[in-house]
């Protein structure tokens, strides 16, 4: 049993290492993008509706329909406003390896992710 346990913590260590490296990388990349696109271009109306639907249901399956949290932490404005927008951008774009938070870069453009971060930080539905 103890051998098993040791093995687990080594795996976890590598997973975490990988995760933090990816996060740093993600933050760097996102800073690069931020300097180019200082403001998020809001998506078109129909696309906005699609994204809002996705946030509600597909982010909602882990973060709660009303963003109060589930398997993932709550995504309420009070808490998210204390976290830098580019860190949130990186989390959404690249996910957090080693946790269930998946990367969303195949679903959204960078502009759309910036817009999502704004929606979340301002608590807009």
């Amino acid at each position: 049993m103890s051998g098993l346990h040791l093995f687990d913590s080594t795996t976890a260590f590598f997973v975490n290492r990988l995760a933090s490296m990816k996060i740093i990388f993600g933050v760097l990349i996102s800073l690069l993008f931020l300097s180019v696109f200082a403001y998020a271009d809001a998506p078109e109306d129909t696309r906005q509706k699609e994204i809002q639907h996705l946030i509600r249901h597909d982010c909602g399956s882990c973060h709660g329909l009303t963003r109060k949290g589930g398997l993932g932490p709550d995504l309420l404005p009070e808490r998210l406003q204390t976290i830098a927008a580019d860190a949130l951008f990186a989390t959404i774009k690249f996910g957090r390896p080693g946790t269930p938070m998946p990367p969303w870069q195949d679903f959204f453009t960078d502009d759309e992710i910036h817009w999502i971060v704004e929606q979340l930080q301002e608590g807009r539905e």
Partner: protein
Amino acid sequence: MKHAIFRSLTLLPWLALAAGCAVAPDVTPPKSAMSIELRGTGDLGLVIERETGSVQIINTTQQKTLAAIQGLGDLSHASVVFSRDERYAYVFGRDGGLTKVDLLTQTIDKRIIQGGNSIGGAISQDGSIIAVSNYEPGGVKLFDSQTLEQIADIPAEYAPGKFSKTVGLVDAPGHRFVFSLYDGGEIWLVDASNRSDIKTTRYQNVGLQPYDALMSPDGRYYVAGLFGEDGMARLDLWHPESGVTRILQDYGKGEAKMPVYKMPHLEGWAIAGNQAFFPAVGRNEVLVMDMNTWQLTGKIPVHGQPVFVMAQPDNRHVWVNFALPHNDTVQVIDTESHQIVRQLTPGKGVLHMEFTPRGEQVWLSVRDENQLQVYDTLSGKLLKQLPAQAPSGIFFSARAHETGL
């Protein structure tokens, strides 16, 4: 609107009947009540409409909606268990709500807010205790199934001051409940046979991030899926003293996993003969395991990442739905040949599937189409479409008699 009218028509006679019974049970019901149809609940079910915080009561014989009941709060990821007489449905909501719905009078019998953020529940072997699993604050609470009064609080404190989200809560024979600690990596076995002396056994270091679990249909094996590493954790309830064993540990070692856009569910683990079919995490595969040897015997490539893998009651076929972006499709696998024998495209957001007790129909919730779809399992033909507001879980009353559901 239609539902509301329908309900007001049916509700009154029922209440009249109920009132009549309460006062003088063996008196013949008044004439007005005689004219209404008496019925059982074995062909009824509940559909969660998570957007509107409502549930529909449906009838699988008539394939229609009987009533819609409002006011159940945040129903994302809601689940349902049934009383052993199949009259009451207990709905566990995300906002910590525990709602007892009367399928006959089509009303809310009782509703409490029992915790901050709940994720599921179970009903004890004798039907007397409801257990609710909570994320926030992490732990499990037990309630009397009649009164919804709290019997016990079991905080999932896995280290001093650290509480874990609890997942995979099921009932087990012997008035027991089993659940897993997502953050703590533990399995807890609760013996509730004596209400005034609830006993909890902890199994530690079972694996990283158990995310869901299932009970074998006979209530013997509790198996938790691990998100943080490969393999699963198995507890043999015939031999709880033997501890938790890791199974399928070598599966997928070193293979890159794809991101998971929706956590798979193990509730519907399909066991057909000696084979168990279950969803791979982060892979477009359904896995097959031999239940005698606990070895992996097959990997069936499927259309996307599976979410639910459910066996038809006759075990002939296994039905699979998928995570984003493949959640518009359902595939049907032959349990003998492991071939995909049918593929359906019901529409975007197929969230759940439920079979009628003997399996001639399957009901699908198609969230983005705002529809329930009923299929004939033999021919694969669409029999009926019913309107529903962003439907998610579908739960039929026959679950009352199944261990681990």
